[in-house]
């Protein structure tokens, strides 16, 4: 009996192996929130981070040339903006003192180099050369001088993995800077982002800047996300179809900052304790 069973297994070993690995894969897919799996991922990110760091010294001339152009342009814009911000800061301090607004704590930033990028099959993530040793924790926001990059999703001792805006699992509360209209930012697989849940009655225009709304527990408010590139009206829908061109040039991204802000646990607790049925 056992011999017959063994003979069958050997005769169909390819199918047995296929079934075995498919079952393990499906079990892994089902257990993605498992703590042990997260720990294994953090360890893998750490090990691969060292290897990626070693290879990342190879310069990419195309990226460097493109980055130089962007930096020159950015330099001119920033010089102009610094002058205007100086004026605004004086005015802002005076107004804050007048209305007694609480001063918001400035961000604490951790500088990081992008040592690896994964762009395969819409799997858009970054490997950063900072980890738990530097104080990085999962869910911390990542920004660059251009705007919002994403958030940390896995952390090893010396390296961490960042999920960028162009990722199917990414969501952020967003706001149109000019008209203060709120929406939810998502990605549908293209080169641009989508600002969803904005009713057709709301005031949005092409060229408007989109920023973080601050309603999210993860991202601080007023970080630039991008510019509205097109607005379509779909018949039968109550909402605008808004495309947002990201402010960050992801292919050329080499340096970022991790904001050492963690989700406000007190706020999460209050929101979670809201009685069912009461909005």
């Amino acid at each position, binding site marked *: 009996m056992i011999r017959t069973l063994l003979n069958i297994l050997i005769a169909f070993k390819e199918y047995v192996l296929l079934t075995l690995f498919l079952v*393990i*894969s499906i079990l892994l897919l089902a257990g993605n929130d498992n703590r042990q799996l997260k720990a294994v991922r953090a360890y893998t*990110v750490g090990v691969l981070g060292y290897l990626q760091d070693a290879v990342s010294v190879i310069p*990419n001339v195309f990226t460097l040339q493109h980055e130089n152009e962007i930096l020159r342009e950015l330099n001119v814009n920033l010089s102009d903006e610094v002058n205007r911000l100086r004026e605004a800061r004086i005015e802002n301090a005076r107004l804050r003192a007048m209305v007694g607004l609480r001063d918001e704590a400035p961000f604490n930033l951790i500088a990081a180099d992008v040592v690896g990028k994964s762009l395969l099959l819409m799997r858009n993530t970054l490997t950063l050369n900072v980890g738990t040793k530097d104080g990085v924790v999962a869910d911390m926001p990542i920004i660059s001088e251009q705007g919002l990059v994403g958030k940390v999703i896995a952390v090893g001792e010396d390296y961490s*993995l960042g999920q960028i805006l162009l990722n*199917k699992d990414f969501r952020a509360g967003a706001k149109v800077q000019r008209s203060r209209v709120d929406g939810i930012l998502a990605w549908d*697989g293209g080169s641009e982002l989508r600002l969803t849940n904005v009713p057709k009655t709301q005031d949005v225009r092409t060229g408007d800047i989109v920023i973080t709304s601050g309603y999210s527990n993860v991202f601080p408010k007023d970080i630039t996300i991008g510019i509205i590139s097109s607005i379509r009206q779909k018949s039968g829908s109550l909402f605008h179809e808004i495309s947002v061109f990201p402010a960050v040039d992801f292919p050329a991204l080499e340096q970022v900052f991790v904001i050492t802000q963690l989700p406000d646990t007190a706020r999460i607790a209050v929101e979670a304790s809201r009685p069912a049925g009461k909005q």
Partner: protein
Amino acid sequence: MKRHVGYAFKAVVLLIVQANLVDMVSLRGITPDLLLIFIVYLAVKEGQTYVLPWGFFLGLVLDLSTGTVIGLSALSKTVAAFTAGYFFSDNKITMTLATYRFLLLVFLTAFIHNAVYFVIFTMGSDIGFLGAVFGVGLASALFTTTLAILPMLVTARVRSSP
């Protein structure tokens, strides 16, 4: 034993190149899948039974080192290994590796791999399945096939040298 270590070394190198250098040749965010070419190469050379664990474990390492759900690449690369291994023929190894047959096999395997991948990837998201498979999936399969010309030419050269 030496053969297995050699394959493992090649796999690690390809994994690092995939994670670091492949984005330099990306076209509109589309990149070739070097690990898939390696899996097809192994399947043609060693057969279906040998390549199945390689497909699974390479996919798993890819899952662990990137941000997507764990098990997604493991599953799609296992299916890819099975597909490529299905065409294994003991007496046609060099003939397959050194000719356009290898490219056809890479394309077929890459397309099936991408279709399986996107079935799960697009679930519960704003990304359309057909658009993903026939846009990104097809483009990536073509890009991967184009890059598979390199190992094909190398094998053809080795085969023709005295």
